[in-house]
């Protein structure tokens, strides 16, 4: 039996007095495609940001690729992770953001090659060759020299996906990657992600309001409410036969808002 690639164990997160996560536990298996759904404010983004070390945690443990994310072992003592440990752990994880966060002063190609060259010491030529492959994969071969300001939202997000992939992380996090896009640009991004999910054995965690896409993409769906997992299971079960009243009413609301299921 293989071990989980992510183990979240009684995780706690508070912003001041506001407890967002209070004893959350779940595992993710290597290669698993996980969809996190739930009402806005239920803590989905916070979970991804914690995994990307963009937040600090207030309690609990997270294990990624067999090592503690926020703790280090020193002899038999457990210490909070320092920057060097976080740097090491981040090499396993990549993230794509809702608002792309491309570097506006760098060309598309430089956006993609910057991190491989700086953090992995890859030769520029090798990084560029790989960047061009990735651009082809996301259908933007002709945009290598463009500046981000010259791209549409959908194109920007596809570049951001290529940029995150260039580091070849074992785990990829996607936080509502289509919700800042005009409706007609959503499909091109989803298409790229579907192909990615089919072609790689990367572990993926996806936060989304696109229920149809979650259904197709995910091996397992986690429905969150107020920082807790209310219900989880294969997409078929969650979307067709949700057992909890809160899941049912959430899905009803989503459908009423015009999203496909």
């Amino acid at each position, binding site marked *: 039996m293989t071990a989980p690639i992510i183990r979240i164990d009684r995780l706690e997160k508070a912003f001041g007095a506001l407890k967002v996560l209070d004893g959350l536990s779940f595992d993710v298996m290597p290669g698993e495609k996980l969809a996190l759904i739930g009402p806005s404010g239920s803590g989905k983004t916070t979970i991804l940001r914690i995994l990307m070390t963009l937040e600090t945690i207030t309690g609990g443990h997270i294990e990624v690729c067999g090592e503690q994310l926020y703790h280090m072992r020193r002899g038999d003592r457990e210490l909070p992770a320092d920057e060097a440990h976080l740097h090491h752990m981040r090499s396993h994880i990549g993230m794509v953001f809702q608002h792309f966060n491309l570097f*506006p002063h760098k060309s598309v190609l430089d956006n993609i090659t910057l991190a491989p060259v*700086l953090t992995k010491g890859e030769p520029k030529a090798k990084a560029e060759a790989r960047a061009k492959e990735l651009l082809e994969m996301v259908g933007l071969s002709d945009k290598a020299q463009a500046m981000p300001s010259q791209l549409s939202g959908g194109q920007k997000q596809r570049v951001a996906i290529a940029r995150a992939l260039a*580091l070849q992380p074992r785990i990829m996090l996607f936080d509502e990657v289509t919700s800042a896009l005009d409706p007609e640009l959503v499909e091109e991004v989803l298409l790229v992600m579907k192909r990615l999910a089919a072609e790689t054995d990367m572990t993926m965690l996806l936060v989304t309001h696109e229920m149809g896409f979650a259904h197709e993409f995910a091996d397992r769906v986690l429905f969150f409410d107020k920082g807790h997992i209310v219900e989880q299971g294969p997409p078929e079960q969650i979307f067709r036969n949700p057992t909890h009243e809160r899941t049912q009413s959430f899905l009803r609301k989503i459908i009423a808002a015009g999203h496909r299921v």
Partner: protein
Amino acid sequence: MPEWSGYLTLILQGALVTAQLTLFGSVLALLAAFTAGLGRIAPWWPLRWLATLYIEFFRGTSIYVQLFWAYFVLPFMGISLSPLAAGVLALGLNVGAYAAEVVRGAILSVPKDQYEATVALNLTKVQRMRHVILPQALPLMLPTFGNNAIELLKATAVVSLISLTDMTFQAQIVRAQTGSTLVPFAMILLLYFAMALVISTLVRKLERRMTRGLEGVR
């Protein structure tokens, strides 16, 4: 009729001193501004504390007093500076204290999501600053840096206090010797203006170069 060509030479010699003070002072101010500006946001509190002390001290005391210290008091501590070096030191550190706040402000105004992208791409702290944050902050600093440099140019006139023969000092000599106020002061008025124009033109050129490709971002 006084010998104007001789007096003109005198004023141009003064202009050279003023230009040197402005150039070297600006270079020092720039160094001080980046050191203190980055120090203000450093993750290590002694650095933040030192940077704050420097900035508050030099903004809170007058350039006149600072210059006096650089030239007349430092020798008592075993540091003797030439008048030019003392002038550059006082002007550079004084203007650098103001510019440090510009550096800090510009860095903090780079959107937070840029910083988060650098974390997600696993850049080190130095790489984040050097490759992502500073290149976006610099174009924001430039216009104010231009103003700072012009302020520095105008402040150079205080150096006559330590017997440096800058442009204003020479104009006063000419005035004393010829009895004419209009000619020497009209002359230096034009020269100051020309120097300020050079500064603002350079800064604008630089700004245009740096913001290439950034159109429509902010």
